[in-house]
């Protein structure tokens, strides 16, 4: 899966002076090697909901040897079974939703946009309505169209992907709407070119 690192970091909301990147230096000698092939599916774990970026910069380590260049969330770590993880992510999403009423709120991020939006999936009855809403919401950032939402990927400027409760990223539009609503945890509008890496199946 192709990950647009630079843009993601650019869309991250953080407190701090612009340009003050807290990227730590490469680990010194005694540090255990982090094998490059160790973190293959970097994007599949849902990180803390607060940060919009998938790449979290470590701020916590004391010993310089222990710091690594960038701490991406790793598959299967910490070792918690899926059913436990999902319960709390679900609840966090609910807690974040201001004035609940049972809406299904998910964050929507878009490549190149400086901030995230949040939408209530319950307001829409179909993918078509969702597509229109997204187009509306993000039209100031783009000149393209979202016609790929139902088709899934090829040919247009943008594609919409969603993260399901297992942490996998899939193209929007493949599963029945209701199933999508119950399993979607967040949305991401990505450039059409990157969407080619995504398969519709989990």
């Amino acid at each position, binding site marked *: *899966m192709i990950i647009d690192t630079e843009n993601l970091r650019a869309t991250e909301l953080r407190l701090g002076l612009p340009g003050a990147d807290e990227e730590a230096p490469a680990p010194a000698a*005694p*540090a*255990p*090697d*982090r*094998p490059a*092939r*160790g*973190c*293959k*599916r970097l994007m*599949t*774990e849902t*990180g*803390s909901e607060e940060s919009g970026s998938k790449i*979290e910069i*470590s*701020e*916590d*380590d*004391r*010993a310089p*040897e*222990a710091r*690594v260049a960038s*701490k991406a*969330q*790793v*598959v*299967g*770590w*910490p*070792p*918690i*079974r*899926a*059913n*436990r*993880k999902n*319960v*709390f992510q679900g*609840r*966090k999403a609910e807690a974040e939703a201001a004035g609940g009423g049972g809406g299904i709120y998910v964050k929507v991020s878009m490549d190149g946009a400086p901030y995230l939006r949040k939408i209530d999936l319950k307001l829409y009855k179909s993918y078509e309505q969702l597509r229109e809403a997204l187009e509306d919401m993000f039209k100031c950032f783009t000149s393209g169209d979202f016609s790929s939402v139902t088709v899934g990927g090829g040919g247009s400027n943008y594609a919409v992907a969603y993260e399901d409760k*297992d*942490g996998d990223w899939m193209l929007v539009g493949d599963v029945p709407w*209701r*199933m999508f609503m*119950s399993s979607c945890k967040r949305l991401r509008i990505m450039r059409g070119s990157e969407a080619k890496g995504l398969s519709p199946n*989990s």
Partner: protein
Amino acid sequence: MREERSERSEMSENGDGDEGKDVRWSPDPGGTAPPKCRAAAGSPGGAAVPPPPFSDQVLENVLENVLCFLTSRSDRNAASLVCKSWYRAEAQTRLELFIGNCYAVSPARAIDRFRRVQSLVLKGKPRFADFNLVPMGWGARLSPWLAAMAPAYPWLERICLKRIAVTDEDLSLLACSFHSFRDLSLICCDGFTTIGLAAVAGNCRHLRSLDLIENDVEDDEDEVVDWVSSFPPGKTCLESLIFDFVGCAVNFDALLALVARSPFLRRLRVNEHISSDRLYQLMTRAPQLTHLGTGAFSSSVEVGDFEESLESAFLSSKSLICLSGFRDLAPEYLHTIYPVCTNLTSLNFSYAQITAEQLKPVITRCHNLQTFWVLDSLGDEGLHMVAATCKKLRELRVFPVDATEDSEGFVSDVGLAAISEGCHELRSILYFCQRMTNAAVVAMSKNCQELLVFRLCIMGRHRPDRLTGEPMDEGFGAIVKNCRKLTRLAVSGLLTDRAFAYIGLYGKLVRTLSVAFAGDGDLSLRYVLEGCPKLQKLEIRDCPFGDAGLLSGINHYYNMRFLWMSSCKLSLSGCKDLARQLPRIVVEVIRDSSEDDNSDAVGKLYMYRSLVGPRNDAPPFVKIL
């Protein structure tokens, strides 16, 4: 023949092989068994009398009667190695068949040896499958086992499956094949839906327990079957009904009626769709319950006096010793459980984000608690309370509310030290945290000498001692050194080769070891493989261990159930070398779809001893070397 015998003794799939045992062979009695009753009760005359021709048969019958009393599988394995006669007698009398790795032996072989099995325990996928490290479709299917057992063990009563792929067809076949079937236990299984559950409920007339524990029951919302209604009418034999993680709601009226006509029901764990206003109704119809899973423990109903009803339901539940559920806990209802607290031996709050403040009135009443599962939201403060009251505590699990590396983490070394000071009877601990010190771990090693299981997960990778900045070597070293009974260990934090040297030096009883993001190099792996004679299960991820480390264990892999190594520094050539040297080990290399097929690097290695060689159901992403 001899070779086959020693191969069996080294690699008995039931674990504990005995190497170098002197195998005596008794003469084969041969032919048909002579009639028993011709006793040569003492022939007259002084002539030497040859032993009566049927004595071996009699001996075998006597033996069978005696061996019936052996229940532990390691004892049985030992007995089966004494001689052929004992081997046969043991095979005839083994009632519970435990298969720790479904690929270590084939169904045909198992059935051929053990003819009278009543109970089967079968384990499939490696544990790391729980954390998404094993791709879907890897294997461990029940179907071939069921197909073989249905004709062979028609009197089978119990099946317990862990991490096995079970389909609805399997469940239907199971329900129809075994007429005295009583107990079904599915743990971390997947592939079935409510259709399969309905088949079991409907066809197993003597069903005593249906325990569905942490399975992935995948139902399309539109296709949910009302399995609870499938239970036949009339009194049931049900003693245990556990469905706390079955995702879809059940027919409540049917459930209520079922509970009402199940006078033997002792364990009932309902899923989160059952709210408190319904829970009390269930409880009132089953005051004899010993184990209760409370479902949501909140209510969507705005008004109602069910709170009082809930209170009185708990008051009447004099036998309750185990409480769980609380999936959506409304803290204002917590007081209703006070009456049962003092009898509780097991309490599971691990789905309730409860604070120390909220926990206090509950935990201070739980003097007899032996097992406690909780979320780290209780904080170090909450752990102090536990330590102060629960002097009989044997098992503690503290799970993180936010299971990410950079989460805040509400418990630390302070909580761990407190527990160690208060709970000297501790046997087993699983502790997720973000901050830890060697001192606290050392303290636990000294205070809790009964520890069998120590699993510490410092969620931030490579994190050192938060006070000294040093690696966590000394802490884990103290655990293996001081806790002489330790059989299971999971390590984390910043660890060098030194930690593994300690494990190899002191961990003489360790059977299961889990390692992640640790060690400096191959030496670590060598220390463990050479130092731990009882090691059975070794799971490693993201450590800098390469081919040299892997090969250092060549003399030990036949004693182990399996080795898992993912994201280490193994190469295909190294693994091939190993596979060549160990013909009875199945070496699987699992490729992720994103991996380059041509590279020599091995992403995931899973290897295990097997009596039957490579399996024939491996999916395309598994390469068997």
